[in-house]
């Protein structure tokens, strides 16, 4: 390696590097100091510090400008590095490699940290892909699609093929779907531009959560999909993850074509009422009763030895009287992801899937399977 023999030395503003190391910390996840996967790879070259982290599935890379005295590379135990950086006040910090350690010295304080390193040669190669495989879309749209779907992913490992968000293209539209088998979240965005062909893929939520949290609202985000990986770029960041293998269920079949009845209700009213009524809802099944009569939605819990809750809400509804039992979390989750003033609950009968959507926006909706009333 070309840095052999050299001892890396650079300095930069604390805030600049701290922000990136905190993201890396989310990626590595492992706190085992002996594992190379708990370390970040730091490469100082050409006035730039390249930071890489991986948990072997998700890969992360970012570039920040630094003042380099000696080029070089090494890996550092991320957990301690993050701890050191978040404990320091703003100001310039110097990093210097000293054999098996990295010395960290702020210019403004008489403090000195040394962190153990592991040889950079042991750091796994992150998968890469050529630049022309990427397509781009507005960062804000992609983030929104993630926020509308990622919460619905199943965490049941025996249904591993539902442990991620399914993404596919339909002509010029990008579609994302997540389900745990009982509820489903659907997001679609027409990009108005051709998207390269790719087969539908299942993306682990870890990568998506990082994008939702870190990608800017302005600008664009670039995506490339291969058979085994997805690559994402924005700003100075390059992220990738191994895709989940397996067959995502045929979600088209469970999206109701048309619903007979609809309820228009103020989103904040419904969320607050759910919060109150859920205090008395049995927390294992979370079964909550939604009783509809013209103009009124009545939410209620089952009566238990501990008590009961019941609340009436005004709504726009003129269909037949009906009671639907739902897991309140399956209603609350999409309501929280939405931002509209009012929401539309659509249904055909108490035993069939209901649809939750915003009054206007057609690109996002949620499907929830009711529970048995008895």
């Amino acid at each position, binding site marked *: 390696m070309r840095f052999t023999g050299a001892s890396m030395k650079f300095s930069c503003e604390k805030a600049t590097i701290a922000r990136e190391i905190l993201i890396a910390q989310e990626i590595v996840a*492992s706190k085992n100091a002996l594992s190379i996967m708990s370390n970040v790879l730091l490469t100082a070259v050409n006035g730039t510090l390249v930071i890489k982290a991986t948990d*072997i*599935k998700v890969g992360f890379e970012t570039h920040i400008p630094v003042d380099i005295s000696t080029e070089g590379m090494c890996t550092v135990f991320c957990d301690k590095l993050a701890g050191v950086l978040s404990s320091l006040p703003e100001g310039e910090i110097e990093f210097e490699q000293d054999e098996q350690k990295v010395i960290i010295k702020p210019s403004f304080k008489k403090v000195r940290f040394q962190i153990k390193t592991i040889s950079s040669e042991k750091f796994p190669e992150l*998968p890469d892909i050529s630049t022309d495989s990427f397509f781009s879309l507005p960062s804000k749209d992609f983030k929104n699609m993630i926020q509308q779907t990622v919460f619905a992913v199943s965490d049941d490992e025996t249904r591993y093929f539902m442990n991620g968000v399914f993404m596919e293209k339909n002509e010029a539209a990008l579609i994302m779907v997540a*389900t745990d088998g009982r509820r489903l979240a659907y997001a679609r965005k027409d990009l108005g531009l051709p998207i390269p062909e790719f087969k539908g893929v299942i993306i682990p939520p870890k990568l998506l959560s990082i994008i939702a949290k870190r990608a800017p609202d302005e600008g664009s985000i670039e995506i490339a999909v291969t058979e085994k990986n997805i690559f994402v770029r924005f700003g100075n960041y390059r992220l990738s993850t191994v895709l989940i*293998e397996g067959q995502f269920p045929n979600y088209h079949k469970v999206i109701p074509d048309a619903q007979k009845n609809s309820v228009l209700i103020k989103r904040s009213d419904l969320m607050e009422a759910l919060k109150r009524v859920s205090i008395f809802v049995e927390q294992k099944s979370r079964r909550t009763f939604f009783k509809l009569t013209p103009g009124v939605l009545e939410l209620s819990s089952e009566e238990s030895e501990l008590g009961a809750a019941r609340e009436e809400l005004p709504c726009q509804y003129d269909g037949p009287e009906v009671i639907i039992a739902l*897991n309140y979390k399956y209603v609350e989750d999409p309501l929280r992801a939405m931002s509209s003033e009012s929401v539309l609950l659509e249904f055909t009968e108490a035993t069939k899937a209901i649809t939750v959507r915003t009054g206007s926006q057609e690109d996002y909706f949620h499907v929830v399977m009711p529970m048995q009333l008895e």
Partner: protein
Amino acid sequence: MNPLWFHVDLDAFFATVELLDDPGLLGKPVIVGARPGGRGVVSTCSYEARAFGVHSAMPIGEAYRRCPGGVFLPVRMERYCELSRQVMDILRELGPEVIPVSIDEAWLDMSGTGLLYGSPLEAAKLLKRRIREETGLGISVGVATNRLVSKIASGLRKPDGLVIVESGQEAAFMQGLPLAKLWGAGEKTQTRLRESGILSMADLVAADQPALSRIFGEAGARFLHSAARGIDPGIHGERSGSRGMSTETTFERDIADGEALDAALLEMACALLSRLHGEGLVSRTLVLKLRLSDFSTSSRRITHRSEFIDSTEVLAEARCLLARLWNGSSPVRLVGLGFDGVAEPAKGGQGELFAKDDRKGRLEQVIFGLEAEGLVKGQAAPRPARLIGRNLRGRSPGGNPFHPDDRAQ
């Protein structure tokens, strides 16, 4: 009340079903199993094929070599399950307790039914006639005071056999048998017995107990000691309690062939799920039991967060459990699959989105339900393609793009 057990074994079951559905095959050697040219095994074959030396669990290529003129048919598990359920239903009408062993085999507790049916001989004849008339299938029946002896008895005069061992005659019956008929003692055990100079049941009864223990281990020796005396050592399938439901396959000879084990798992997964759903029950826990040639027995279980609804799922889990229990080379005597925590579907349950449409399990469930109500009887049940082929062991998010060996980190 004297215990009275019937062991009922369907004769050449899969092959007979194929003959029933296509009488043009009558008299021909019919071999049901993997496709010739593939790597699978024979599931079952007609008595005509057995005359060529073909037997179940034989590699399909070998079967083809021995019987090139045979009619090779694929396994139609759905159809077999359907007929198996009909047979089990008849058994349930006749006896107070039925313990299904596998898709084509069951024990029937007939204790105390003398007043209803007369002698065991009359009861057995009635059973054979009803099954023949109502399903077209032939059975062999073994009757005895315990399950082991009844099982051995049913295997003596196949097909269409009936062997009754009178109470008190169990030991004499066993001693009249060649050693090779000792059920539960596979090829290896047989060889070791011969090597130890034990050539007959009488030799086995006379054998020194500690010496047997040294050769066959504690459990093996105990089994042989009891079995040779016609005493049920009680190592076969658990009695069907209200909370469990299981099935098992004892191989004719101990096998170390993954393909044959897989075929057994497939068969059991279908049969088990069909029984579960046929009785309108659900379960979230699957148990796999494995007994090796030295009688060492182990089991593993997995509990899902939601109920098992499709046989693909059951098979995939069964394979994972097997991979954890079996080293891939030790000869296997028996493999069993069961559900635990079997219960009525919960009230106030959460509905499943992919229920009737996408997950074919629900479809299976619905069809089984309809069949149970007699609504679609006689119509051909749907036949999903063979459920094999998907290796689910390398599950969870994908593979590792970096170092295949670093996964454990």
